[in-house]
């Protein structure tokens, strides 16, 4: 295979890994290994969470550079697993272009979590975390219902607009309103646990820990970017639920 073609495939694999939730270090390593296996003399990969830049020098000394810009993320463990297998296979067997293209296409078109399943699972998560944080059976049930609704609502909003911050603000406003009304009407004793159970669905806790992990591992740039992103997202979530409580007159 030509180096240009190899780099295109490697970048595509890297892009999809980053979108599916792989760490930056992992993506850099994968691209590096693939290019090296196909005979690159030198590979320089730089990646942050929203972009990948790679420059490769092939056997004749020609330099090739490609860039990817990543705008959306959808954590998908199944894709991650398959991409990992593919990159290992490429490094060992050095398959031809046709085969690699076909395999990448199959992975990209692989099934995703259906919207109905997403709603059911989110309801389960919200209920579980409400009980985890000390809520009773009634709070768990309320959280179960709102958890499903909020994801349904969020998916609907995502189709209309793309700003994550705003969607999260509105979602947490919705959650806090539902929890407050449930508490006011006497179904649930404590609206705090219902809110926190639902917030666990939206809050970027894992991203926060992963960004610190990036920083400890030496990827300062992507670590700092993600810390800022998750803190800002938490501000919007808190703002949404606070606004709801003020609006309904719970606190001021």
């Amino acid at each position: 295979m030509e180096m240009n073609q190899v780099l295109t495939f490697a970048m595509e694999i890297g892009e999809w890994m980053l979108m599916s939730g792989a760490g930056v270090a992992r993506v850099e390593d994968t691209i590096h290994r693939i290019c090296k296996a196909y005979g690159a003399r030198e590979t320089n990969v730089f990646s942050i969470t929203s972009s990948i830049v790679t420059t490769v020098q092939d056997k004749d000394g020609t330099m090739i550079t490609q860039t990817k810009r990543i705008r959306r993320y959808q954590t998908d463990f199944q894709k991650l697993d398959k991409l990992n297998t593919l990159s290992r296979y490429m490094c060992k067997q050095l398959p031809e272009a046709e085969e690699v293209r076909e395999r990448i296409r199959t992975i990209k078109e692989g099934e995703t979590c259906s919207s109905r399943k997403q709603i059911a699972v989110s309801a389960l998560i919200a209920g579980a975390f409400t009980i985890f944080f000390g809520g009773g059976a009634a709070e768990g049930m309320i959280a179960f219902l709102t958890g499903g609704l909020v994801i349904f609502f969020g998916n609907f909003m995502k189709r209309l607009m793309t700003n994550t911050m705003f969607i999260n603000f509105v979602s947490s406003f919705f959650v806090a309103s539902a929890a407050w009304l449930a508490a006011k009407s006497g179904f649930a004793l404590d609206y705090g646990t219902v809110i926190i159970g639902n917030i666990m669905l939206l809050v970027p806790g894992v991203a926060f820990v992963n960004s610190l992990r990036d920083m400890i591992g030496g990827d300062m740039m992507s670590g700092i970017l993600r810390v800022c992103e998750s803190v800002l997202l938490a501000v919007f979530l808190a703002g949404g639920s606070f606004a709801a409580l003020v609006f309904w007159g719970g606190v001021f």
Partner: protein
Amino acid sequence: METAVLQLISSFTGSFGFAALYNLHGKKLWSAGLAGMISWLVYLIFQSMTENNFLINMFAAMAATIYAELMARILKTPATIYLISGIIPLVPGGDLYYTMNYAIAKDWHLFYLYGQKTVIIATAAAGGIMMASSFYRLCQEMRHYFNKKSIG
């Protein structure tokens, strides 16, 4: 005791749920749920021994990492999958949310308390993961090294 059992069950459900949301299937999905339960079990065990929040979270994250590395080897999948599922009960998502909530409410004392807690827990979890995974790599490299030596 009762709350501990409830928490273990709900941590399993939470991790299981997130893994299902992230499109995992079958046997791998159940092991991802188990990852969350194990890390919370270790958390509870250390909680009964020490008051130090940093240490408790660090050891729980280390346990999750070891489990993830082992499962990655057994089921031939990247360790990240089990690691992310395993640390879900530990991540300070709730604390991060409360911190910002108190910032908006301008309650600076509670903001400081929760902010400190969030940073400590997140650092402990990240540090635990890095330590355990580095140690695992080190052991692997050493085994390769000595195997090569005995052959050559």
